[in-house]
């Protein structure tokens, strides 16, 4: 859950009275844009990306305009701009018009939880407006601080002194930056980055920090995010309809974490345990439809609901239903297998049979009872299966599932379809 840009950034900064550049949204009229240019001389036109993608400036995705004609041309160029950075891909839907802030000083500021220190940590430099990685270490202050007392003015003052920041920016930053801790800590953020903060001179020459770009990450496990009243669709680009459905079942009892890896994969692998998730995701690669963790001892009803959603979205294309986890510590195998089996039975009842090979690798409480229950279901559905206990290497079981998938692709699927009385295999 990431949020980028000033369209919402300026609103969020308003919660803690942190000054921000004036911004107009995608629906701004020509009069309003003209007015913004008239007052500020220079405006920036930036594409609105949902979620978080960085390095927009380097990709030439920030337009500058000093007149309406240029502003509108930039709007047209950037409105549906596409941007790929690392593994993240984003498509814009709209632009913002942001007032240019004339300033001599640009400041970079960020707070995140740094695992070096296991504490909230401020990163600060007076040489902002560029990529932080490009700067000399001595220009950057990285300062952990105590979470209970928070980011205090003296922490900022000390840091600025340490990196030799110009005297005139110290006082205004010491006054304003601690507010950002309030925003970060009390509204469920995991990171907050303002770059640049431009130091705007007032009439008396005194500088005011003005946030000109905004990035933050939210903690999906923190209900404080709700205090901001942000519309859900802001984060919709992050997740598919399937993930959205599963996420609605997200409670602390039993994981229901899913990520769609390959919409056209052929192995559906309900996975139990974070470690198993890493390993399974690693070994299955593109063959996997989803990466998931359903561990944490989900109750029967939840397991069945999650499985039903998985089946509804992906079973028709699935060659191998692969239920995999290590030797569970407290997840009840009977309850989880019963949930997944009953959901499968219901799927077959509602949508008819689909060719599947079922591979299971699992250990844990009530293991054999769970296996027995699931085999009953598979027998009654006429599905072939092979179950491994916890004494087979989990990685080998994953490889086995992959080999079955290969066989399914090479005609096995049709063979199973024939035994199920299906005229042709769907996938």
């Amino acid at each position, binding site marked *: 859950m990431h949020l980028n840009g000033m369209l919402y950034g300026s609103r969020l900064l308003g919660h803690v009275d942190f000054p921000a550049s004036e911004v107009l949204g995608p629906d701004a009229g020509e009069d309003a844009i003209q007015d913004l240019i008239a007052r500020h001389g220079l405006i920036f036109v930036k594409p609105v990306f949902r979620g978080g993608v960085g390095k927009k400036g380097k990709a030439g995705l920030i337009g500058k305009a000093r007149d309406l004609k240029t502003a509108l041309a930039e709007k047209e160029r950037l409105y549906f701009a596409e941007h790929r950075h690392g593994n993240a891909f984003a498509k814009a839907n709209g632009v913002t018009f942001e007032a240019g802030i004339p300033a001599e000083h640009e400041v970079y500021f960020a707070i995140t939880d740094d695992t070096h220190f296991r504490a909230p940590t401020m990163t600060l430099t007076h040489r902002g407006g560029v990529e932080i990685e490009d700067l000399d270490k001595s220009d950057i202050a990285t300062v952990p601080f105590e979470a209970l007392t928070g980011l205090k003015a003296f922490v900022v003052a000390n840091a600025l002194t340490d990196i030799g920041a110009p005297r005139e920016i110290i006082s205004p930053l010491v006054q304003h930056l601690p507010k950002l801790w309030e925003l970060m800590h009390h509204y469920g953020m995991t990171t907050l980055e303002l770059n640049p903060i431009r130091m705007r001179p007032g009439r008396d020459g005194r500088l005011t920090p003005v946030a000109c770009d905004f990035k933050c990450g939210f903690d999906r496990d923190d209900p404080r995010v709700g205090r901001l009243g942000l519309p859900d669709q802001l984060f919709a680009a*992050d997740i598919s309809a399937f993930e959205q459905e599963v996420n609605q079942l997200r409670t602390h009892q039993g994981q229901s974490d899913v990520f769609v890896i390959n919409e056209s994969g052929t192995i559906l692998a309900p996975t139990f345990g*974070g*470690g198993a998730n890493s390993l399974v995701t690693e070994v299955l690669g593109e063959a996997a439809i989803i990466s998931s963790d359903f561990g944490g*001892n989900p109750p029967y009803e939840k397991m069945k609901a999650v499985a039903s959603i998985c089946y509804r979205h992906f079973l028709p294309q699935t060659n191998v239903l692969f239920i995999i986890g290590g030797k569970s510590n*407290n997840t009840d195998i009977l309850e989880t297998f019963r949930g997944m089996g009953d959901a499968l039975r219901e799927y077959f009842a509602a949508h008819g049979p689909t060719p599947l090979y079922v591979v299971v690798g699992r250990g844990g409480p009530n293991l054999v009872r769970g296996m*027995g229950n699931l085999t009953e279901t598979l027998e009654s559905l006429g599905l072939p299966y092979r*179950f491994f206990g916890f004494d087979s290497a989990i990685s080998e079981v994953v490889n086995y599932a992959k*080999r079955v998938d290969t066989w399914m692709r090479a005609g096995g699927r049709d*063979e199973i379809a024939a035994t199920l009385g299906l005229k042709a295999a769907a996938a």
Partner: protein
Amino acid sequence: MYHKGIEGFPYFLGLRSLADIATRDDRVCVLNVLGGESRTVTPTSHAFSGGNVVFGTSPGRGGQVLKTPVGDIPVYNNVREGLDAGHAFDTGVVYLPPSGVRDGVAELVRVNPGLRKIVIITEKISVHDAREIRAMAQANGIDIIGGNCLGVADSWNRVRIGGALGGDKPEESLLKGSVAIFSNSGGFTTTIAQYLATAGWGTTTLVSSGKDVYIHYAAPDFAHAFGNDDRSKAAVLYAEPGGYYEQGIDWTKPVVACVVGRWKSKLTRAVGHAGAMAGSGDSAEDKERWFMGAFGVPGLFTPENPVVSAKGAVVTNIADIPAALTAVMALNGAAPDFAPRGDLALKPWVANDQGLRLPPELAMPAVTAPEPYAGQIAALGAQVGAVVARQNMKDKSGASVMDPKTQVTSVHGHSVLDLALEPLEATFALPLVHEIATENDRAMLDVAVAAEVNLVGDPILVAADAAREAGNAPNAVMATAAAIVGPKRVERALGCTRALIGLFAHSGLRDGRDEEFDASGIVCDDATRALFLATEAEAADPRPEAMLAAIAARGGRSAFLKFLGGLGGRLSRDAILAAIATTIAWGPLMRKRISRLTAETLPWYLRLYGVMVGATIPGEHHRSGSLWGIPRDERFGQWTMADLCFLAMTGKKPTPEEALPLQMLVGLLISNGPGSISAQGAKGAVSADGPQTPARVQINKAMVGFLTHTGYSHGGNGFEGMAFLLEQFKDAGLTDPSDPAHGLDLKAMATAFARTYRREKAQAKELGTEVRALPGVHHPVFKGKPVNHDPRERFIAEFMARQGKYNVFHAFYRELVQALHDQGASPYVFCVNVDAVIAALLLALLWKDFKSGTLTERDLETAAFTVFLYGRMIGAAAEIDDHLNRGRNMDTRTPPPACGFVV
């Protein structure tokens, strides 16, 4: 602002040695001890650790206890109450929901000055709270392990604190040895311990660290305590991407590091482990490099390329850990702790390829699992047949389903359209064995039913004739007969079936036809033997020999008949029926497609089939040794089910041309899903007897239930279509309905009717009366398009066309729907529905006999109803068996709020 702990750390760390993390001296307080997870895990931990939990808390539930194998754990409303009651503890375990964890930590820290460490099991703690928890613990000098972890365990001390390391059987995985484990994954902590045992390595202390953003007890902390633990000669560390915890650690003893999660860099969101998201410099590859640097190895360890140093090795697959550790320790001159226990090769515990031929490397046979699992699996294996969970089956069926879009019903996965193309004898057993019968099974079925059809000398015949003479419709006649085939009439046949299943259940016989099967090891006691053999009272019954001869003549094979033949006595008819039923049911039973109950009741259905068909033949035709003039041997040895049905309707054997339409008719009529009235009657009858005590359910009465729920509207209306066609064709001079050169102008006939019908319609509108409905035309689902089709009608029409078969009545219907539209009698071209197909097929079948006067119009009506009953008898058997297996007592009731009162 941190409490001073171990020297040299820029933060508080109190745990000096792994030997101190989980000891027998630790006294534990569990917060939310009665929560769902703690309730199952804490008793095992408590018992394994010699009773280390002094009390638990659960606000509002003070005074309760948590029962454990080693005594009750008292529960208090809060920590203070527990301390006030005189309990002392130094270790807190937190099972609170995520939003309560921070406050729970605060409670432990503030209320108990004797606190030393806290284990947090809870997952999905917000980063906000984790920050504050860290700060509180640091300020007060408390070690925290977790969150989102499974706690810690010590194989030497036999203690586990917090979560469920080792699952419900910690002694299985926590084997004393020389290796410490630190793992980001709770599940893998146990799994790694178990894998190590396969190479002979046991464990000292196991730490499940969790993998949130904040890892409160992290790799550097572990490294320090590991260095100070003399018991630990080596360590295994399992890490995932994200965080710098593993960077720059100076390991003082050998370590195998397992880094998993390269692929995770393709994910843009954490799955499972909240902290397992890499930033710019903490990816899986980065971590691999950190460890390779620390161990001085140039690459990753794989079985093919075992790169190790005396300091350690880096693997990316947890299965490689044991080999890597052994290799590293060999360089240190250390041998494993004990002899290897098991191995990690692929070992399927249970498997069924459902008859598919998989490549040999995939089709590996199931192996014996380690105990106690092997015993449990064996117990499962002893279970013969499928086990189906019971549920409310009102308006539901596990046997049939109608697709509301196509209106095509399927029975056990076979659509009635496909069934219409199968020989009747192939579909008769379908409701019960869930599979289309094989050639062998068909031969067996034909004999079984043929042996029941002739009712001479049986009171059933008298009753059926009386019912017929009283003016009843064929369903009531059949019901009269079925009512008499009560439990006592099948007692011995069912007993024989039960006995056969019992004798062969664990014999290894997979195929009931396998006469080569060595049954010499199957011993039959005298009482069972007597059950199979004919009694003196049955000495005059010629049927057993006739049945055996017929089976031999048809080439039928049965391991059970062969076995019974070896008993050295004259077999009873019941025993032969049981052997036939068991032969047919055996494969599906062994493959767990059907339940043992279904297999054991199969003879009842077969007997009912025979009697119900037999009862439709008037009594005068039942003679000793012949039925309607057909000698017994011929009937047993050659006749099929379809032949018998045709005989019952027409008094003669059908030609192959006649058999096909009859087979199609019966197939189409098998089922219309659980919502049809006939199915409801059958299900209600089962429900009323109580399927939860299946031995009391009268299957014959359930058949009566189906029969009473058919009638002139439901079943008898097949005649309406015939009557309509008769009216159209009565003076047309038609001789052979299957001859395309019939010489009739069907289009002109259809147009003439359509004109008349249009006038009728207009008149009716003027008068405000109902216009007569046209049977076989139009359908509430298949309507509204310019031209409409009933897919069932299309299916049959296309099949007939492929076979080169012609039906003049069907052709007339096609002309009729077009003419109705052309003449303005219908707004669009109606479909010809499946009822029209049925009427056309049946009328064509009986046309010659009707024209010759052998059959009257009344006979035609009876025939239409009867053929419906034959088909639906199969569908009803499916519903009866399904409800018997799945349903609950009285589950077809409608609850009062769903009922209405009408004035």
